[in-house]
């Protein structure tokens, strides 16, 4: 086809617009959080104390490091060091794996205590705690889905780098995937204090 063209700025603009939609998708949930925190302040406090701050902090560190790793990968591809770029992308994917494993451990502990959406134990607790844990599962769950999507996206980028679709001259795909990964990280940066720290 003669009408293929490369537009670096256009590709970036499109990605940023998409990131806006991600922010607004989570924005709806943050609105619910704000409204219910206002209504059930004391119950949210009780609920927040039951979350595992250690795992939460660990996951925050893992995600922050992963954001560094993908940023490094983008810098390496710009410098033409493809091997390093691939390895740092692998490192990012590994961080995603660690995050999901930690999340699973955390959720399993909650299930063990009889806390899952609509569980008999949760129904006996106060309305506010039910809403708190409902939001906890839905918001961190939706975020975990994004972590998994991000990991899949980065795996595709590794494949692209190996196929030389992404290289020193044309790296906007990796850059956009990196942007997506940063938004996943950034959303967690808001979720973490809201659930684990401020309550």
């Amino acid at each position, binding site marked *: *086809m*003669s*009408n293929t063209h490369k*537009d670096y*700025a*256009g590709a970036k*603009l*499109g990605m940023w*617009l*998409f990131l*806006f*939609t*991600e922010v*607004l*998708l*989570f*924005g*709806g*949930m943050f*609105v*619910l959080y704000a*409204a*219910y925190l206002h*209504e*059930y302040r004391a119950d949210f406090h009780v609920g927040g104390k039951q979350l595992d701050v250690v795992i939460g902090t660990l996951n925050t560190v893992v995600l922050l490091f992963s954001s560094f790793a993908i940023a490094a990968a983008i810098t390496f591809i710009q410098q033409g060091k493809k091997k390093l770029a691939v390895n740092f992308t692998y490192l990012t994917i590994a961080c995603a794996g660690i995050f999901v494993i930690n999340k699973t451990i955390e959720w399993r502990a909650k299930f063990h205590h009889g806390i899952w*959406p*609509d569980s008999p134990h949760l*129904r006996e607790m*106060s*309305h*506010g705690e*039910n*809403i708190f844990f*409902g*939001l906890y*599962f*839905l918001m961190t769950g*939706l975020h975990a889905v994004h972590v998994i999507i991000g990991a899949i996206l980065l795996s595709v980028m590794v494949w692209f780098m190996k196929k030389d679709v992404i290289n020193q001259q044309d790296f906007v795909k990796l850059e956009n995937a990196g942007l997506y990964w940063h938004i996943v990280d950034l959303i967690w940066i808001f979720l973490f204090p809201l659930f684990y720290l401020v309550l």
Partner: protein
Amino acid sequence: MSSNSLSFWEDSGNGRTGIMAWLTTTDHKRIGLMYMYVILAMFIAGLCLGLAIRLELIAPGRTIMDAQTYNTVFTLHGVIMIFIVVIPSIPAAIGNLVLPIQLGAEDVAFPRLNLFSWYLYIGGTILALVSLFTGGGAPDTGWTFYVPFSEFTTTNVSVAVIAVFILGFSSILTGLNFITTIHRLRAPGMTWTKIPLFTWSLYATGWIQVLATPVLGITVLLIFAERVLGVGLFDPNKGGDPILYQHLFWIYSHPAVYIMILPAMGVVSDIIPVFARKPIFGYKTIAFSSLMIAFAGSLVWAHHMFTSGMSDTAVLIFSLLTFVVAIPSAIKVFNWTATLYKGSITVDPPLLYALGFIFLFSVGGLTGLILGSAGTDIHVHDTYFVVSHFHYVIFGGTGFGMFAAAHYWLPKYYGRMYNKTVAKVAFYILFIGFNLLYFPLFIIGLEGMPRRYYDYLPQYQEGHVISTVGSWILAVGVIIMLVNLIRGFTKGEKLKGRNPWGAATLEWTIPTPPPLLNFDKEPDTSRKPYDFQGVTPDE
């Protein structure tokens, strides 16, 4: 630029032929037409459902269907018309056909993403149809999916809301694509103040699609989660608040009516000057008012909820903001009439439909102010007054805008002209049928006829009978119009020239029908979009 003389009908650009050439195409014109065919089919389906509702309401009590069927029929009418027909109608179908050419571009910024949007649209449409025939039967919640009923009804709401999520995603990607195209692919010399107003309106629409639709996405996902997991976020028995659902729903769904109406306003802004042979009055104000509507329209959602339980302060603020939106809308109407003033007017079918838009939209807009002021809204809330207002804006506005766009642009793409006399006759029948159908509903609404009810008191019957008869006249008008268009585009007279209406925007400077890459020579961006000096019709 290729000097290819083949049109996009003959040159698929992907080396394939037949149906596969269409299903794998990344050509914006083919994708636009594929949207249009599906929208047309679903429009006819939605129209039949609407006619069934009207027939049921011709007399009190049971006429042709039972109450549960009636609930599912009006839900389907709403879901199909809103999410599958009206939202994609002008942006996705006409926008795809016209926008890149108006900018002097060969295609949209992300052609493959454009095709992907179409597949998402088809996937969502199929899933919506699947929800009718599987599970516990077709949804019966109304198109708003209000909680708590939508969480507990045994009908197939779960599948329907996922369909809405997918359709929303398709809409987001189309908006994103158009915004990027307008920013990045304007031909050299195509400055922001030379962009035709139709494309300007799609720019404002694109921003609403990108910024508002995700909120609908999360809202319908939450309904799905509630139905599957039973978290209770909107269930008062578990501590949830149903009003919050209404807020989230309308944060999207009110801006969504501007997704529906803004492109139609763009169509009218492009058509009026061509048939008045005069530059548009107040180009910059019209372009800016589109952005104003997009912005202010995002801040008025709670005017749907004046009776739902809100503080008086909130009611006052949302009422005020609603009145603010009327200003940019009125600016447009005044600018259109000012353009017509002392113009050299030719009453061709596109202008007739555009004038129909102005009249019907004005009725819809002004009655919207009655609904927007908190005091009167309490009286007419959830009555047929709302139904009538809504149909005047969306059918009288977007619907007639779409018809105008079809009569204006499609001859260019099919290379054939329809019968103009029949098109005018169809318009008058449509216009009379439309007002007979919806105007009586204002009156019975003011008298207290509640919307969505299956049955009613005998005192409302007169209005319902007139309305139902109007629906038949409207249907006749639609059929005549569509048959005339389809006959015209398959067997009508071939267009020899490039510019049948004598318009000055870029899409009329290229061959008819357009070649694959749109332009046979560099687009000439020196002319302003509504400068008709030296431009003559060339059929």
